[in-house]
């Protein structure tokens, strides 16, 4: 195991296509478009390319009574400036995304055969860059970010014809899906979309699991996309509390993945 938690499952060839960790904070007053340019030189050696994107809406887990298992819908306010900047490394595998109320670090497959770098390395990069961003905000007299949500997401692409062929065999992939009974009236499903939501212990947040057919952009191939997203509020805005929450979120994603998928598939992915 190459993570901080030696009891977590690990895989030599996991089906992960992308993973990202997001730190969301209250919109920073005074943070404007020039600050993207002022910050870039600080990370340009590692992230020499950039792209301008539309900002993503804020997302907050509602954990009080009355929640109906639906993430944010309807009108969503996007804070000013209406810009999100991607800073990409040379390989385009890693990117840092910054907007007025979010800081995100992604790792993604571009060619498809890159080895997954594993969480400790991604965590180390995120912490280094987050500290650098916070130092920058302090120097610019913009204040320390007031963190309100953290998020860890893994997007897995489970390919057809590798351990299963079609949706009649979905129980070979997903433990929560029972095989059809012999006397079953219904034919095998053509396709399956599934969303499951779990409350993280001690009301720390929520784990969202979604399963859906998806077409991968880089090769136009249809796959079964299994996304696990853990989101919740850290105890405080301190770096220690933020990363403590991210570690918990990551643990729920990893353990959730192990519970959600079958041992046969995990064996194929090289479970250690």
């Amino acid at each position: 195991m190459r993570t901080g938690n030696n009891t977590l499952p690990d895989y030599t060839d996991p089906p992960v296509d992308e993973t990202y960790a997001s730190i969301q904070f209250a919109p920073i007053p005074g943070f404007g478009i020039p600050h993207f340019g002022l910050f870039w030189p600080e990370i340009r050696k590692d992230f020499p390319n950039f792209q301008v994107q539309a900002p993503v809406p804020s997302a907050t887990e509602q954990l009080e009574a009355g929640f109906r298992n639906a993430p944010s819908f309807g009108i969503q306010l996007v804070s000013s400036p209406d810009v999100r900047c991607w800073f990409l490394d040379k390989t385009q595998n890693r990117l840092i995304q910054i907007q007025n109320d979010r800081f995100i670090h992604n790792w993604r497959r571009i060619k498809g055969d890159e080895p997954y770098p594993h969480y400790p390395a991604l965590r180390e990069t995120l912490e280094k860059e987050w500290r650098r961003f916070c130092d920058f905000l302090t120097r610019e007299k913009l204040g320390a970010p007031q963190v309100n949500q953290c998020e860890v997401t893994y997007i897995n692409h489970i390919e057809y014809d590798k351990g299963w062929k079609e949706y009649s065999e979905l129980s070979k992939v997903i433990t929560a899906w029972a095989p059809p009974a012999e006397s079953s009236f219904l034919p095998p499903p053509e396709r399956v979309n599934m969303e499951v939501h779990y409350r993280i212990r001690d009301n720390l947040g929520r784990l969202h699991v979604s399963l859906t057919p998806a077409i991968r952009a880089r090769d136009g191939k249809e796959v079964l996309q299994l996304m696990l997203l853990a989101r919740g509020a850290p105890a405080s805005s301190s770096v220690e509390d933020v990363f403590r929450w991210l570690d918990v979120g990551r643990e729920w994603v990893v353990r959730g993945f192990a519970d959600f998928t079958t041992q046969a598939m995990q064996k194929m992915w090289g479970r250690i």
Partner: protein
Amino acid sequence: MRNSGAVNQVAIATSGMWTLDGRSDAVAGNTSIRVGRMNQWQREAVAKVLRLAYSLRQNWDSYGSAPIRPWVVNAAIELIREVPFDNLSAPSVVPVSGGGIQLEWSEGNRDLEIEVRPDRSIEGLKVLAGMPVDDGQELTSGADIEQLFSWLIAG
């Protein structure tokens, strides 16, 4: 057979990844199109658009043409999603100089050509027995799409 997903307005994504519910989930750096609610021809069409978009580079036509623009890819996929009919064949998908895409459906002696342009316009052209029926029309709503496809399958 009509697809139950008919809409009154064309909603074109300008960036990001479309999710199960058609909402943009742009935090992901990679693009993947969720197709769980699409029928067979729509899934084939989306795969064609993506393969084409990711295979073309700058100057793909030797005349300095730009690669297919992200907006064009998103708009083409959203258009495919909004077609309110199930019993179609997947369209041919061809690049257009300047960074656009043309989708071409054929039913009997009727052809329908829809061009998604990098200037953020979409134009549909009806062709009957190899001859254009009119000068083409700009598509601005789901009703425009439904009207064109109703003509196509009436052949």
